[in-house]
C-alpha cells in the first residue's frame, strides 16, 4: 500500500490540472460563498418623486436606521407616479417612492427578488411605526397633524415568484450549456477521430468548414431557446411584457458569445474529457456569479466585477428586463452593447483560430518550383 500512496503523491505533484483543481477550487468556492453567496440585500437604491420628495429624502437621511439600508440616489420633486414606474422598469433603482402631501406610495421592483423582499420588510416596519406614531399623536395632541399613509406596491412580480425571475435566467444558462459544452464536444470529437484532418485536406474553404460546423449548433440552440421560452411562459405563467425583438437580438448576440467560447475550448482541448472539464470551468462561475442565483448587488465589489465579465450576467439583465419589467431599448442598450462587444471579440477569435488550424499552409515559393507547377498542371490536363 505504501508504494501506491507514494506513487500517487509523485503523480499528483506533476499533474498541474489536478493540482490546480485541488488548490484553486477550494479557494474559489471559499471566496464565492464568502463574498458572493448572499441572499440578503442590505442596501437598496431609492428614487424619490413628488412634491414631498425633499422631505422624504431628509427623513430617510436623518433616520440612522433607515439610512443604513436605503440609499437615495435621486430626488425629483416634479416626478409623478408614471416616472416612478418608468424608473423601476429601466432598473434605475430598487425602490421608488412617490410622496404627495399626505400619502406616500412605495413601489418595489419585484424582478429583483431579494432586494424586493428586503424592501418589503423595511417598509412594512415603517408602516407599523407610522401607524403607532399616528395613534400616539391622535391621543395626545388631538389631530394637530395630518396622518400620513404609506402604501406599498410590488411591481412586475407582485407575488415575488421565484420562477418568474429564474426562467429568463435559465434560458441563458441552457444556451450557455449548448453553446459551450455541446459545440466543443462536436468539434473535439472530430479532432479525436482524425476526421478534422480529413476535412482540412478537402478542397473546402475554411470558412465553409467553420460555418458548417457551427450553424447546426446555432440552429439547435435557437430551437431550444424558443422551446424553453414558450414552455416557461405556459407552465409557470411567466409574463412577457416587453419587446420580443430586444429579446431576440440579445439572445442572438449571447449565442455568438457562447458558441465562440465552445469553439475556443475545443481549440485548446485534445480529448472530449478535457473539453468537458474546461467547459464546466466556464459554466460554473456563470451559474454562481451572473446574478441568476445570488443577487449581484449583494456581492462584494471584487466578486461582482467578475460577474460583470461573464456574458450570462448581461443576458440575464436583458431577459429579465424584457420579460418581467417590459424594459425597452433605452434602458437595455448597455447590456446589448456589452454582449455585442463580447460576441465580436470571442466569436471572432474562435473563428480565426479554427480556420487557421484547418487552412492549407503556404510553402515557400521557389522560382523553379513555379516552373514545375506548370509542368504538373500540364500533366494534369
Amino acid at each position, binding site marked *: 500500500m505504501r*508504494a*501506491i500512496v*507514494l506513487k500517487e503523491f509523485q503523480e499528483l505533484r*506533476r499533474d498541474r490540472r489536478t493540482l490546480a483543481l485541488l488548490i484553486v477550487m477550494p479557494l474559489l468556492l471559499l471566496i464565492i460563498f464568502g463574498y458572493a453567496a448572499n441572499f440578503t440585500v442590505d442596501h437598496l437604491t431609492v428614487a424619490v418623486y413628488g412634491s414631498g420628495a425633499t422631505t422624504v429624502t431628509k427623513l430617510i437621511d436623518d433616520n440612522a436606521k433607515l439610512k443604513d439600508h436605503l440609499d437615495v440616489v435621486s430626488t425629483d420633486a416634479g416626478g409623478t407616479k408614471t416616472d416612478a414606474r418608468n424608473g423601476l422598469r429601466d432598473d434605475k433603482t430598487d425602490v421608488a417612492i412617490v410622496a404627495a402631501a399626505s400619502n406616500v406610495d412605495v413601489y418595489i421592483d419585484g424582478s429583483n427578488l431579494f432586494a424586493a423582499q428586503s424592501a418589503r420588510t423595511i417598509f412594512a416596519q415603517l408602516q407599523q411605526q407610522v401607524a403607532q406614531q399616528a395613534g400616539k399623536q391622535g391621543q395626545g395632541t388631538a389631530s394637530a397633524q395630518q396622518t400620513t399613509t404609506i402604501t406599498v406596491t410590488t411591481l412586475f412580480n407582485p407575488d415575488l415568484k421565484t420562477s418568474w425571475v429564474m426562467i429568463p435566467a435559465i434560458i441563458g444558462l441552457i444556451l450557455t450549456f449548448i453553446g459551450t459544452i455541446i459545440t466543443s464536444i462536436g468539434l473535439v470529437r472530430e479532432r479525436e477521430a482524425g476526421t478534422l484532418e*480529413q476535412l482540412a*485536406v*478537402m*478542397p473546402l474553404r475554411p470558412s465553409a468548414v467553420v460555418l458548417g460546423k457551427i450553424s447546426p449548433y446555432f440552429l439547435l440552440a435557437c430551437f431550444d431557446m424558443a422551446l424553453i421560452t414558450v414552455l416557461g411562459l405556459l407552465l409557470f405563467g411567466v409574463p412577457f411584457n416587453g419587446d420580443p425583438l430586444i429579446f431576440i437580438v440579445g439572445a442572438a448576440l449571447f449565442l455568438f458569445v457562447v458558441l465562440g467560447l465552445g469553439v475556443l475550448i475545443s481549440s485548446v482541448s485534445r480529448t472530449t474529457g478535457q473539453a468537458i472539464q474546461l467547459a464546466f470551468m466556464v459554466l460554473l462561475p456563470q451559474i454562481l456569479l451572473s446574478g441568476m442565483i445570488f443577487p449581484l448587488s449583494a456581492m462584494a465589489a471584487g466578486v461582482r466585477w467578475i460577474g460583470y465579465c461573464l456574458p450570462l450576467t448581461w443576458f440575464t439583465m436583458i431577459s429579465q428586463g424584457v420579460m418581467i419589467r417590459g424594459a425597452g431599448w433605452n434602458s437595455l442598450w448597455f447590456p446589448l452593447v456589452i454582449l455585442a462587444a463580447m460576441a465580436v471579440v470571442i466569436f471572432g477569435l474562435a473563428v480565426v483560430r479554427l480556420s487557421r488550424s484547418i487552412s492549407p499552409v503556404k510553402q515557400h515559393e521557389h522560382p523553379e518550383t513555379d516552373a*514545375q*507547377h506548370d509542368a504538373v498542371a500540364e500533366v494534369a490536363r
Partner: protein
Amino acid sequence: MTVVGVRDLTVEFGHVVALQDVTLDARPGRITAVVGGDGAGKSTLLRVLAHRVRAVRGEVLTVDRERLGYQPSTSGVWATLTVDENVEFVGRSYGMSTRQIRTRSAELLERAGLAEAGGRLGRELSGGMRQKLGFVLAILHEPQVVLLDEPSTGVDPVSRVELWRLISTTATGDTVVVMATTYLDEAQRAASVLALDAGRVLAAGTPDEIIAAVPGTIARLDGTDAPSAELTPLTWRRGTERHIWLPAGVPTPPHGVAAPDFEDALVALSLAAAPAGRVARDRRSLAYRDPTSEHSEVSIRDASGGATRPAEAAPTAAPTASATAVTKRFGHHLALDGVGLEVRPGEIVGLIGANGAGKTTLLRILLGLEGADDGTVTLFGRAPDNASRRRLGYVPQGLGLYTTLSVRENVAFLSRVYGVPRPQLPPALQEVRSSLVSDIGLGRQRQLAFALALSHSPELLVLDEPTSGVDPLGRARLWDVIHTQAEAGRAVIVTTHYLQEAEQCTRLVLLASGRLIGSGTVSDLTRGTSAVLVRSEDWQRAFDALDRSRLPIMLTGRDIRVAGTSAAVVQDALAGIPATVTSVPPTLEETMVLLDRDRDHEHREGAAA
C-alpha cells in the same frame, strides 16, 4: 519526371526536428512506400504533401487539394455516419454531382467488398472494413495523387490483401500513390521505397536497390562464430539464424555471406548510421572467440541485469500457462470462440492476428485479469490467482508506465510493489533516469517497460504487441531480448500483427475475429497450401485479368502472387496473356488468408445449417 515530391525538406515542430533533408520522388503508375517506425516522420511527410505542415527548408512539389486524396492514419471515416453517408458527404465536399457519386461509389464499394454494408455506421465496421472505406473515400473523386497514412496497420490479413489489391489497382493507372507503412513486406511489394529513421532518410530506391546499397557485407553466424564484444551490437537474429553487418574491410566469418533480404538491409543500414556502426567501422577488427570459452555464445545484455538461468526447456515440461476452449462474450459480441493456447518453459508462442481478433482478450483471460465465459485457464498449473501474478511479467500494449513520473520513480515503485531490489538499468536508460517517462521517447519507454517486467525474474513473460510501430533495428533488438529470456528458461507469449515475425516464434497461434484458424510452426501451417508466381512483361493486363477472375492475388513489385491455387488455374485465368507461371512456396500471410477464408466459409455454412 517528378510529379509529387520533396527535395531537401526539413520540418521542425518547435525544437523537434521532424524531418531533415528528406527527398522523395513519387511518380504515377506505381506505389511509393514510406517506411519507418513510429516517430520516423512518415505522417509528417504525407502531411507536408497534403498542405498541412509547413516546410522550414526545401522544396515541396504537390498538387492542389482538388486533385489530392488523403487517408489519415485514423482511417478518416466518420464513425457516426453510415457507409453511404460517408461516401455522399465526401463526394459532395469535392463538388461531385449526385449521379457521379452514385456511379463511382457503387463501383468502388463493390470492389472493396462493402457494397452490402452501405447502411452500417462507420463505428460498426471491422478495422479492415473501416480502412477499406477510408481508402474508397480517399480515391472517390479520382484524385491525381493519393496519400495513404498507414492504411494497413493492424488490419487482418484478408482485408490487407484486399486493401493492397485496391491500392495496386489504383496505382496501375496514372495515379501517384504514396503510402506510409510500418510493414516491411508491404514496403517491399512497392515499386519505390523511402525508408525513414528519426526524420532522416535511411535509404531510397527500389527494394532491390536498397538491398544493393548496404555498405560492407551482411553475413550469417552460428554458435561457433562468436564475434568480439564490440561487434556484438552489429548482430541480430532472424529466426534460428543470426546475422551480422560487417563494415567494409572487416573479414567475413566462416559461414560466409548471407543473401540479405529487405529487412536485413534496413537493419544493416540503421546500424551503419548508428554510433555503434561508426565505431566498428573505425576499429576494423573482428575477433572470433574460441567457441568453447565461457563467452562463446553471442549474448545481448539481458535487460534484467543478467540474472538468467540456463535453459531447462524440455518438450515434456508441464505447460507454464494454458487455455482450453476459451469463450468470451462482450454483450452480443463474441470476442473469443473456443480458443486454446499452451506455452512451456523456453518456448516463444506467437499469438498472431489483426486488431480486434481477440489477442489481447485472450492474454487478459490467461493472466486472470478477465474471466472467461467458458473454457479453462491454468497458470503455473492452477487457476490464475494473486500468487501467480508475482511469477509473471506483463508488458501491455500501452506499456503501462507512469508517464508523469521519472524513470527512477517508476523503477522504485515497481521494486516496492514486488519487494525486489531495484533492477540494474541498461546504459541508455541510466542516462535518463531523472527524466520524466513522457520525455524519453518511445524506444526508451519500451526498453523501460521490458526492464520493469523482467525486474522480478518472472517465469512467464507476456508481451502484448511489443513491436508494433517499432523500426526494423528496434524490432530486431526487442526480439533479441525476447529470445534471451526464452533461452533462460522463461515461457514467453507475444502478440503481433506483423506476420514476418512468425519466424521468430517457436510456435504460432493464429486468430481471426475471435476464432482459432491454425496453430503450430510456420512449416506446419504452410504445409498443404500452394502459391503461384506470375511474371509478365504485360503485368498490368495480367493483373487485371487475374483480378477479374477473383483469385486471391497480391502485387509484389511487378510480380503477381496467387495463393491457394495451381499454375494451371492461373494460366486459364490469364487467357493467353504471355507470362511465366511458377509454383512457389506460400507465405504465412497467404496461408492465413486461405485458412481464414475456409474457416469463414465453414462458419457461414454452419450458421446456415
